């Protein structure tokens, strides 16, 4: 693994961390399968979310735009994801082109969402071959204290479930043909949530092996120091339907098949707690939305709450 020069770990710190792990202690006192505290905050606008795992923090922003569909898929919308590793998150990140690490992160999360058909792309179709929604999720990591993948996936999941796109009215000509579409403002028609079949969440393990090759110890939700001495990582992406959406072990210290199964089982247990935390926050937001005034009475608030649309 090409580690950025910023994450230099001194020999004595490395020896300390490894020695503590040999006695079953992690740097911050957690157990081997304990996650750091999870906080999710849904932004003022729909589709904005912030997720933190310990001190690692990422912001996700979902937006949607009406575009022409691809010629070979006239009834499907599209979804794209990008992950930006902001230089304010860590000295190792440089502004400009996404590094291979950023590309890998965004591809893993995008693949887990798209390939598992989490978002119903056909439901994004407004007028076949003319207008479909192109949904984008942009994640920015603002603080890197380990385990970027899980935090990005969590922020993206929260933002996607929170996001509501404007209601679109299809206008018909006198003959009954659909001619054009009209995007309705939020105070005219209630915006709609995306049609999501499920929403996957990621749980990653840092694999620590003293010499880089012997059978490693798998630590759930590795901190930055733990990742700096790790020789590999294993990420498990699950959803509530009991599906494994991604099993991402991209090289690194090899593990036995049995250890992979154990990690997946541990991830399944922890997934429930994580999903519950997310559900609670989303239900809170829904309640506060329902308790606020009905759409017709909204005035100034509508302007800030509309997602960008064309």
């Amino acid at each position, binding site marked *: 693994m090409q580690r950025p020069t910023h994450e230099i770990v001194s020999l004595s710190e490395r020896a300390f961390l490894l020695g503590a792990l040999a006695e079953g202690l992690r740097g911050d006192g957690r157990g081997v399968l304990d996650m750091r505290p999870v906080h999710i905050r849904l932004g003022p606008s729909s589709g904005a979310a912030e997720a933190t795992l310990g001190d690692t923090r990422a912001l996700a922003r979902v937006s949607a735009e009406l575009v022409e569909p691809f010629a070979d898929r006239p009834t499907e919308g599209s979804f794209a994801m990008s992950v930006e590793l902001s230089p304010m998150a860590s000295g190792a990140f440089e502004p400009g082109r996404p590094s291979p690490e950023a590309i890998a992160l965004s591809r893993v999360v995008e693949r887990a969402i798209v390939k598992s058909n989490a978002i119903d792309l056909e439901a994004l179709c407004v007028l076949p071959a003319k207008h479909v929604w192109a949904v984008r999720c942009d994640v920015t990591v603002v603080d890197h204290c380990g385990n970027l993948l899980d935090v990005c996936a969590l922020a993206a999941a929260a933002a996607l479930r929170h996001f509501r796109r404007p209601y679109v009215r299809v206008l018909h000509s006198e003959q009954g043909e659909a001619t054009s579409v009209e995007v309705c403002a939020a105070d005219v028609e209630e915006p709609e949530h995306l049609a999501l079949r499920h929403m996957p969440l990621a749980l990653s393990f840092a694999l620590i092996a003293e*010499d880089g*090759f*012997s*059978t490693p110890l798998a630590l759930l939700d590795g901190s930055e120091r733990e990742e700096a001495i790790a020789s590999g990582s294993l990420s498990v992406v699950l959803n509530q339907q009991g599906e494994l959406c991604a099993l991402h072990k991209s090289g690194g210290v090899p593990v036995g098949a049995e250890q992979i199964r154990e990690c997946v089982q541990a991830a399944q247990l922890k997934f429930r707690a994580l999903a519950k935390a997310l559900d609670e926050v989303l239900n809170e937001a829904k309640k506060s939305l329902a308790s606020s005034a009905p759409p017709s009475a909204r005035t100034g608030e509508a302007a800030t709450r509309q997602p960008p649309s064309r």
Partner: protein
Amino acid sequence: MADLVAVPGELLGRREDLVAGAGAYVDEDGGVRAYVVGLVRRTPLPSVDGRTQTATVCVDAGASVRASLMPNVGEIVVCKVVRINPRVANVEIMCTAGGSVVLHEPCAGIIRKEDIRQFDRDAVEMFKSVRPGDVINARVLSLGDSRSYVLSTAENELGVILARSVSGAIMVPLTFEEMQCPKTLSTEFRKVARIRDETSPLSQ
């Protein structure tokens, strides 16, 4: 080859009985394994305390076998001409050690025009000495640069030993400068090698 061939990861023994030499490493369970492809050589060590008998195991990487196949300076090599230009002929070396060792993979060589023959070296016309497709005997002058060996055919026994005429037939040597096509009876110029063979019309 009666020796055992080992491949990377192959278990050669236990740490208690063997010392890992070049080409072998010790894994986390105490097994001694090879890390390159090669022949396994065990050298017994004198037992220190009179009880345990250990050996050092080395895996002799194939590269060293391949290295000894490379042509050395002064050897006669058999080559096939690939490309010519007025100054230099590019050849592919196929056999070394006088033709007795066939190379597993051909190397590149060049013959400068001054090294084609001994007399009148500057007036050599490459097209009348060797042509692409000819098989020649040459001597290695030097290891040259990283790209090709430097060869010479400036001896009586060196030069073209097999050539095809423009019509595709294998030509018969007439003199040390000419070869004749048996089909069309036309002659072409080559720098012909003197082969020590009683049946050849050239060995007198």
